């Protein structure tokens, strides 16, 4: 039986259709020679499968030669193709005997192939260096591998030949990174299962929110710095005093208490004050405009006469029945003036008032002080304008301080402390004495001139001088010298501006005494001024020698204190209540009379007559009692016996300054005023001297 070995191509097979004798016999590759006889003899016929062909013994003994050839037994041997050239079917002469047994796709590149070269270029110079080595090695390997197929001889290995040089090259390539290309590189990846995701959230309660908005302005930054500075200063103060800390604690408690009050109207106190003034200004706008800007143009046509323009009227409900007994402007705040209310009628004595008005608000006084007795006189301190000295009808003097709250005076004299026994007619502040205490003088009808000194909390009095008819009162009774019993009460006095110790006193009898503070026993001079009580005596603010006096005997007189007789005398046809020099000119003065008229004189213009005589009150029975010029504004205030103060503006003619000749400079300052007065006086003196 022939053993069919279909897998091996080297064995010749007995296959129906192929005759081994026709194919080319290749005896080169004879590998095995099977002894047919041995194999056949051992298998007797008849034991095989049923479809086995039965052969005769001769056929069985026939020797079949087996030849090993390199022919592919599966390759077709009778392929015929149509040839267009010969127009017939012709068998192909050569048939491909290649049988592919095994193919393995790999990712290796032959190093000399184009793709490998390209990859190498990409990877850089290292490849080149390695390639040189590889090239050397691969040559050695090739000689080795060429030998191996001879030994193995398996077809399986044939395909591997090409791999060998490459694999050797790849072994050498392990120094370089593996070249990957899209054809022979495969990724093998695996993915783990992704667990499904679940959110777990925990939320706390959000903190309460609040909207905050602020602006960062220049002034807010400034305020913040300012507060910081104040805090620092407070801290410094606290550190300085330990006792202060205790006080601070106490005061803090008090502060806390007041802060708990809500909606307090007092927080708008300043604003309400301003508003009152504003509302009044609106209502009385015309007057304010007149005060500021109006200048009477008709003065040019009126020769040298002037007029007075009425401005505000100051009235207070509660003082309607009282008489204005004193007026005084405040030096520091020139719109503020003080009004003393009382009564000149000795039958009608009751309570009095001290009022302060500001021109900015004519409807209501700024300060109100009710007093038990009528105010007769008052004076505001030049430097400390919050101190007001007041003289009363009952002879007391008091000092009020505007800075303090409350309606009581800061100092008050009593019977023990030397108050006058008669009404005080005039008070006047002096410069501080050598101990820097404030002091003032008062004159009264009890014929005493008293100096009061403010020492700590007390008023200490010093009798300066006693007025008498004949002369100074001597201290002790002297033989032959009649003690002066009849003493004359003083009704007015005035202190000299420059010469501190010099002052004038006017008496009830009509005499004016020139006295000295230091020299209390005698008068320096006596002038027989008037026939009735001297109402007012005033030094000229510019000229050091001139003073003016007025009296109920209808006259106003101007004096040079070196001369016993008056320089000028004016008869005003009515009792003169008060006279005042103007602060801007040495030759201008004004007087008020009981018939309600104001007389303004300017001696440089008219020596004999007033340049203005004007009635300023509505009702003719109203008597004018006092007059004062404003220090800076062209305003005069006039008080009357109905508790009303009227303010008037002086027209330009009344305020004339000396005309300058063309080309000459205007003389300014008090020297000019002095010179003006001196000129006048010299005119008067010359005729006198010539007369004498």
């Amino acid at each position: 039986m022939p053993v069919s070995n279909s897998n091996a191509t080297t064995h010749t097979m007995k296959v129906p259709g192929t005759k081994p004798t026709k194919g080319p016999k290749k005896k080169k590759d004879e590998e095995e020679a099977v002894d047919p006889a041995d194999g056949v003899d051992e298998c007797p016929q008849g034991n095989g499968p049923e479809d086995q062909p039965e052969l005769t013994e001769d056929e069985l003994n026939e020797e079949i030669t087996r030849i090993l050839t390199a022919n592919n037994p599966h390759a077709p041997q009778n392929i015929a193709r149509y040839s267009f050239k010969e127009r017939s079917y012709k068998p192909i002469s050569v048939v491909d005997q290649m049988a592919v047994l095994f193919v393995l796709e790999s990712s290796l590149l032959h190093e000399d192939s184009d793709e490998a070269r390209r990859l190498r270029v990409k990877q850089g110079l290292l490849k080149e260096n390695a390639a040189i080595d590889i090239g050397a090695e691969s040559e050695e390997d090739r000689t080795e591998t060429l030998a191996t197929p001879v030994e193995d001889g398996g077809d399986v290995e044939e395909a591997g030949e090409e791999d060998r040089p490459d694999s050797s090259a790849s072994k050498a390539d392990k120094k370089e990174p593996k070249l990957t290309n899209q054809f022979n590189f495969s990724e093998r990846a695996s993915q783990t299962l992704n667990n499904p995701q679940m959110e777990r959230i925990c939320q706390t309660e959000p903190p309460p929110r609040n909207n905050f908005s602020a602006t960062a302005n220049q002034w807010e930054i400034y305020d913040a710095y300012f507060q910081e500075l104040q805090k620092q200063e407070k801290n410094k103060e606290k550190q300085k005093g330990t006792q202060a800390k205790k006080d601070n604690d106490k005061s803090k408690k008090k502060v806390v208490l007041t802060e708990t009050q809500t909606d307090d109207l007092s927080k708008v106190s300043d604003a309400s004050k301003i508003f009152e003034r504003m509302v009044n200004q609106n209502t009385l706008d015309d007057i304010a405009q007149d005060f500021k800007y109006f200048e009477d143009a008709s003065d040019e046509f009126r020769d040298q006469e002037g007029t007075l323009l009425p401005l505000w009227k100051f009235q207070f409900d509660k003082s309607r029945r009282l008489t204005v007994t004193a007026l005084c402007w405040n030096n520091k705040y020139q719109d503020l003036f003080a009004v003393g209310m009382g009564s000149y009628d000795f039958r009608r004595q009751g309570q009095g008032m001290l009022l302060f008005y500001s021109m900015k608000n004519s409807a209501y006084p700024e300060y109100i002080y009710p007093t038990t007795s009528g105010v007769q006189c008052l004076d505001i301190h030049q430097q400390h304008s919050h101190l007001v000295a007041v003289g009363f009808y009952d002879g007391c003097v008091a000092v009020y301080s505007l800075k303090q709250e409350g309606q009581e005076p800061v100092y008050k004299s009593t019977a023990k402390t030397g108050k006058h026994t008669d009404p005080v007619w005039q008070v006047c502040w002096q410069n501080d004495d050598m101990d820097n205490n404030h002091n003032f003088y008062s004159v009264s009808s009890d014929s005493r001139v008293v100096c009061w000194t403010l020492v700590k909390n007390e008023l200490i009095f010093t009798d300066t001088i006693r007025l008498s008819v004949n002369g100074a009162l001597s201290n002790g009774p002297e033989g032959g010298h009649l003690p002066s019993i009849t003493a004359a009460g003083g009704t007015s006095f005035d202190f000299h501006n420059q010469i501190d110790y010099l002052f004038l006193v006017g008496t009830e009898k009509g005499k004016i005494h020139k006295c000295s503070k230091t020299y209390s026993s005698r008068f320096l001079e006596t002038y027989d001024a008037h026939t009735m009580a001297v109402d007012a005596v005033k030094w000229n603010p510019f000229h050091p020698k001139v003073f003016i006096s007025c009296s109920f005997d209808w006259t106003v007189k101007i004096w040079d204190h070196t001369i016993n007789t008056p320089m000028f005398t004016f008869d005003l046809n009515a009792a003169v209540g008060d006279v005042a020099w103007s602060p801007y000119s040495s030759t201008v003065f004004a007087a008020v009379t009981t018939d309600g008229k104001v007389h303004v004189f300017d001696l440089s213009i008219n020596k004999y007559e007033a340049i203005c005589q004007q009635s300023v009150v509505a009702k003719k029975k109203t008597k004018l009692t006092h007059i004062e010029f404003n220090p800076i504004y062209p305003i005069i205030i006039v008080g009357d016996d109905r508790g009303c103060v009227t303010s008037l503006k002086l027209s330009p003619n009344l305020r004339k300054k000396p005309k300058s000749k063309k080309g000459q400079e205007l003389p300014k300052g008090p020297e000019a005023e002095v010179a003006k007065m001196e000129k006048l006086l010299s005119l008067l003196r010359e005729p006198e001297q010539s007369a004498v």
Partner: protein
Amino acid sequence: MKVDVEGTLKRIESYKGVIGTIVVNAEGIPIRSTLDNSTTVQYAGLLRHLAAMARSSVRDIDPQNDLTVLRIHSKKYEIMVAPENNYLLIVIQNPCE
């Protein structure tokens, strides 16, 4: 010097031509007024912002300066506003009457 604010306000109200006064506290609530409620609330609300803006302008130019009074003079009347201590004082006056 203690000012009697109540007395002053009453006097202001009695002057010629004054239509009304309003005092507004720090929170913008009118605490005292002589006008009817709706007008008061309207004035207070509107003027509060205007006064704050005016004050801011004045202080922006010079932080040491501060607004004292804001006067709005209109055809019919004049409104005067003064901020103080975070309070607001408003007076409306017709000066022509």
